């Protein structure tokens, strides 16, 4: 295992000890628990998370005022919101499998939301944006220093909302409102219905619905998060956690001391780090090929490539 997992201080398999969180969470409830703990401890005074459109509609003061038509019913459409309480955090828990522009709120969080210490969760690309914003704060005056905790989540690729709509409503033949949970695991896209039905789609089907921009990304495990987490590598209901930065280390140690998580050594669990490494390498190899092909794409000019 090499650079594909990024730099990290510790890696464990963990899950929340809070049953209420586990009920709402995607896997081990790591992000929800960490933010909940950080809010309680005053490490952050608010966090930017992906909530549902219904939540944003109910609490417009917590969301970005943009042009999205709030009256237009779109279940499972993620909307970034700033939450300051545990109750809101639970309402926003769980993965939505489509694009949530969390970084768009980072400046406003320090402005009209009045936050001094912001927590943010995001995919690897969003972590890169956050770190870039901290290094080169153009248009982000005073924002960098306010980012107190950045949690990264593993990401192979992401889907636009229309893709998820197509996958669920056409391929899985389920109404969006009737979906309880979506998941990608064991090489399949799983859709769980509220009535108990389970549909699995082979990932081969979902590939064409991916966002093309994701195919140049060479980061699977959110290398730039303070802490990054995802289900891959750990048993069902557990999450793999990489503690990466000093901030991450201190928050994780405090959360452990407070009994927020139960952990198992990553070496002891199946499928373990080998699986994470394998998928990370798969993503990197596959996307490097796209990057290479883009170099000569078009007539006499290549497409913009962020990694070369």
């Amino acid at each position, binding site marked *: 295992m090499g650079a594909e997992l990024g730099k990290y201080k510790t890696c464990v398999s963990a899950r929340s000890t809070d049953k209420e969180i586990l009920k709402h969470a995607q896997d081990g409830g790591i992000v929800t628990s960490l933010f909940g703990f950080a809010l309680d401890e005053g490490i952050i005074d608010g966090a930017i998370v992906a909530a549902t459109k219904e939540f944003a509609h109910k609490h417009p*003061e917590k969301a970005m005022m943009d042009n999205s038509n709030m009256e237009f019913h779109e279940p499972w459409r993620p909307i970034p919101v700033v939450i300051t309480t545990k109750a809101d955090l639970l309402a926003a828990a769980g993965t939505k499998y489509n694009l949530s522009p969390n970084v768009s709120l980072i400046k406003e969080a320090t402005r009209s939301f009045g936050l001094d210490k912001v927590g943010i969760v995001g995919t690897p690309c969003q972590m890169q944006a956050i770190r870039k914003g901290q290094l080169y704060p153009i248009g982000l005056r005073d924002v960098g220093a306010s980012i107190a905790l950045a949690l990264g989540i593993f990401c192979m690729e992401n889907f636009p909302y229309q893709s998820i709509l197509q996958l669920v409503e056409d391929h899985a033949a389920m109404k969006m409102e009737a979906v309880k949970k979506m998941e990608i695991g064991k090489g399949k896209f799983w859709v769980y219905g509220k009535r108990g039905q389970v549909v699995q789609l082979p990932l081969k089907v979902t590939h064409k619905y991916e966002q093309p921009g994701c195919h140049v990304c060479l980061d699977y495990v959110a290398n730039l998060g303070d802490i990054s987490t995802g289900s891959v590598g750990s048993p069902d209901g557990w999450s793999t956690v990489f503690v990466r930065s000093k901030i991450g280390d201190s928050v994780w140690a405090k959360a452990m001391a407070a009994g927020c998580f139960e952990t198992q050594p990553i070496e002891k669990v199946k499928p373990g780090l080998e699986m994470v490494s394998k998928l990370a390498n798969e993503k990197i190899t596959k996307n490097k090929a796209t990057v290479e092909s883009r170099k000569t794409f078009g007539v006499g000019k290549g497409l913009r490539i962020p990694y070369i």
Partner: protein
Amino acid sequence: MNNSTLNEAIILSKVVEISPTTRHEGHSKLVLKVNDAGIIETGNWCSITPVRGVEKLAVGKTPEQVPKIASRVCGICPIAHTIAATEAMEASIKCEIPKDALMLRHILQLANRLHSIALHDILILPDFYIPGTETKINPFTPEEPVRSVAKRIQRLREIGQTIGQISGGECIHPSNTRVGGMYRNVSEQAKHKMYDLAKEGLVLAHQQADFMIAVIRSYHKRDFVDVGGMKVALPKDLGYHNQGYLATHAFYGTSSQEEHPTWDLNRFKDTRPWDWYMGEMTVDLEEPRYPVGGTTKIGTKVNPQMEACTSIPLYDGQPVEVGPRARLVTFKKFDEKGTRGQNIAREMEYQDCCYEMMDSLDELNTSGKVLADYIPQGDGSIGWATNEAPRGCDAHIARVKNWKVQYFNMLVPTTWNFATCSKALEGAPWQLAEVVMRGYDPCVSCATHMIVLDEDNKLVAQKLIQ
């Protein structure tokens, strides 16, 4: 005085030029005709900042773009420009904004003033002495007592800018003001943060104002001051003038939408600099000791009439003074005159900023709406709004038709003050001309207007009120 002595006096007066003037925003110069004793007979203070042309850029743009462009004219009081331009658009299209939006604008405006006064303190401090000593103040020295003053100034600026950031999205070039209100209301948490900061600022503002007023008073009690090693007699009426004052509100502004506006477009007239400034002359007094780097070399040709990049706005046919003293004279019966009065008035506004901010925060309902339900497209009628920028009344005039700006004009604070200050220079020793000028807290770049000259320096076009 018979004719021969009059002629002698004219012959005896010398011309000295201080260019560029320092420790203020923008690029300006002083051309002074002085007598034998070095006392200014005629003073011309002119902007030589290149023309921005914002008023031309605005034509044809949409009303929401123009305040953003207008704001870019300068980074010291962009908030005043944004608010005045936005409200001029609203006045033209006749759009009433919700109360909470107005409260947010009040807070934004005061935050800007708080940080601007603090900045001005840093700029004028080197003119003054530590009271009771012969040591001039260097605000950047690591030694006490100046060090803690500098730190206090920095904190006050930080407080002002942070409050501006929260209420307006950005402390320089605020992004949240919109035609019709504000982009969004603040959260309850943000309101508390602003309140806490205003409270902290109030304590510091009291301390800072006390310190500055003591320093200013002790300076003006002196008989002589030192300028670049020259011992200069300090007149007790430094900076006195007999022009009127113009202030439209104790801290905010007015607009043509109001039932009883405190400014009248019909009493205003724009004139050209060559009606007011001196013509071509040759510099015949040079002082290499004058800080920094001496005055302009003897033999240099100067022509304030043609070099000045401003227009001269008149109110009731006369140049007027705008700024903190004008506000305090108009609304709070302040009666100190001259440069001393100006600087003290500015310091007295420190605490007012924080008090007003807290009052506005008390009034602010964080769940209230901040955008008007209906925003008209504009029928082409003239609308104007004034905003009391830190350095004076900033009046913007606009005409919007079918959501396009047809006409836009900015009468910014320092434009008003140029001619007034030129009058105030008379009777002062020329070495103190910059002290008088700094009393106006000049912000020159936005004062620069649209004048087009051809190759022979002949005027071919000028932006006048249409």
